[in-house]
């Protein structure tokens, strides 16, 4: 257990009461069962909340960077326009460590350069309650060091037999917990149980990367001509599902929607994805990445190389959503491991000693 983090203990009943109080005071979103699958959805009754062990269908990014949002409204007669910045006090419950890590990366993207007021306004007014998880066949966060997290949440829940161990992540989180409940200090047995759960989680990963994360940008840098891109490009639909389910894909398209009376309208942004055919299409129908292979290579490089050049951090958090959602089974760990294997073989061929390899 992290020594710097303070913990509280809630009974199951106490936790349900806490959720009910949150529902009374805020717009609450959390993990639910949708058609039997874990997903985020509105929580209007504490019974709606089902803490998910495995990743949700979409990540938690939609609560900060929604699928569609108006950025400004315009009036064509006067030529005037005014910004639209929508936000409200909301609570998001059940985001796993990978999602919290993803949000941390989104924070950097949207606050670097020209800051994104819409994203930041939502971020400011959201209370985040994370929750612990167990890996499924696709989760590989442990390979990227995001299987645990000590920041990026207000409260963090670990389910144990007798109730919930709550990690305090912020003053805001502590204040709201104390306001609505009477949390107890955890007993040693609670902390031991939580530590055991973490051990079990770490042992449970089936998907793993076969190189340390620090080596990945270098490995990708020498894999532009790797045959894997053509191989997966041949089966890819270019359907953008990997982009849309990804907690760190932040690209969007902007368009103007004019009212039928042509008096004005709204400028909206909607999620976009680099695997879609139109993404890199420009005037004259020229397309910088016409083939699906080129688009996939671009996306993978965005996760493991291009953005790490810019932000000094990998932009994959290992949630495995892209692999899980892919109908043709393009798998991010398998593809990356193929690149790792061949990059190493190449180093051996060139006689570079293992210790001197940059990856």
């Amino acid at each position: 257990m992290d020594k710097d983090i303070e913990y509280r203990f809630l009974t199951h009943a106490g936790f349900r009461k806490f959720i009910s109080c949150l529902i009374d005071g805020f717009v609450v979103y959390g993990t639910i069962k949708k058609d039997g699958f874990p997903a985020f959805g509105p929580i209007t009754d504490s019974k709606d909340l089902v803490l998910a062990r495995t990743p949700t269908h979409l990540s938690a990014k939609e609560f900060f960077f929604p699928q569609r949002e108006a950025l400004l409204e315009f009036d064509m007669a006067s030529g005037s326009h005014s910004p639209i910045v929508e936000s409200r006090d909301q609570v998001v419950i059940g985001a796993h460590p990978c999602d919290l890590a993803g949000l941390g990366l989104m924070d950097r993207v949207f606050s670097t350069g020209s800051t994104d007021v819409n994203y930041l306004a939502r971020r400011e007014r959201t209370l985040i309650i994370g929750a612990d998880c167990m890996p499924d066949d696709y989760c590989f966060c442990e390979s990227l060091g995001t299987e645990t997290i000590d920041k990026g949440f207000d409260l963090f829940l670990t389910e144990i037999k007798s109730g919930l161990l709550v990690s305090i992540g912020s003053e805001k989180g502590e204040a709201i917990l104390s306001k609505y409940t009477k949390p107890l200090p955890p007993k040693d047995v609670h902390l031991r149980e939580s530590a055991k759960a973490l051990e079990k989680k770490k042992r449970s990963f089936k998907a793993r990367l076969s190189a340390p994360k620090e080596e990945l940008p270098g490995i990708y840098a020498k894999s532009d001509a790797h045959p894997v891109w053509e191989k997966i490009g041949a089966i890819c639909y270019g359907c953008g599902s990997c982009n849309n389910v990804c907690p760190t894909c932040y690209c969007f398209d902007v368009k103007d929607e004019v009212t039928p009376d042509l008096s004005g309208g709204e400028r909206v942004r909607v999620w976009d994805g680099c695997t879609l055919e139109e993404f890199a299409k420009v005037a004259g129908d020229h397309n910088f990445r016409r083939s699906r292979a080129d688009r996939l290579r671009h996306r993978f490089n965005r996760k493991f190389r291009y953005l790490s050049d810019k932000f000094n951090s990998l932009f994959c958090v290992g949630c495995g959503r892209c692999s899980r959602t892919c109908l043709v089974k393009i798998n991010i760990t398998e593809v990356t491991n193929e690149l790792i294997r061949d990059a190493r073989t190449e180093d051996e061929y060139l006689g570079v000693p293992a210790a001197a390899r940059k990856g």
Partner: protein
Amino acid sequence: MSIKPKAAFFSFTCCEGCQLMILSCEKELPSILEHIEIVNFREAMTERSEDYQAAFIEGSVSKREEIKKLKKIREKAKVVVALGACSAIGGLNCLKNRFQMDYLRKEVYGQDGLKFKAFETIPARPIDSIIHVDYYIHGCPIPKKEFLSVLTSLLMGSVPRIVNHPVCVDCKIAGNICVFEKGLTCLGPITRAGCDAVCITYGCVCWGCRGPVDDPNTAAHKETLLRHGLSADDVSLALSLYGAHKTKTTSKN
């Protein structure tokens, strides 16, 4: 006050559901009529005129006289917009192309159907197999939202944005669980979106009414469908419900 552009709406072989969708834009129609004059609209008015700049055409071509009529419309109109699946991709009507005419006559009109030739038809086809189409509004029926968006774009002098990504995008954005995960199959991964994935959102699957995206990976999708338990015949049937014109399935009867 400038002269309003004149728009004409035409029906070919179809259920006329797309015209009905336009009529159901009740809230928007008064605003629209401030900017255009409608001179032909069979479902809503008696008057006819041959003076128009924009032609909105629903329905596929399935009779010889329709070819002539269509060419005449193209001559008169500066802009031709295909309305809905029948017009844009051939639609359900093209299912009949898979069968011999005599078989269909008997099936539809009974034994007497073989005796007379009053309903002489040709293989059904989308209108762009006869004339040039400037813009397409897809769907069975068309979504109101898309009609309004194309219309306002044309009135603003900008190029209408026709969606060219698969239904999977709209489906993920709608937050739906993938139908394949639920043990069903659909045509979403190769079908043009713009429909907000309404069919899936309301518990159905995608049948491909909006036709394929510009560059569909049909080979990959056939593999996916086979992997999810469909037979080769099932796959062919699924693809030909709305795509019979493109799939060109050989006649069985």
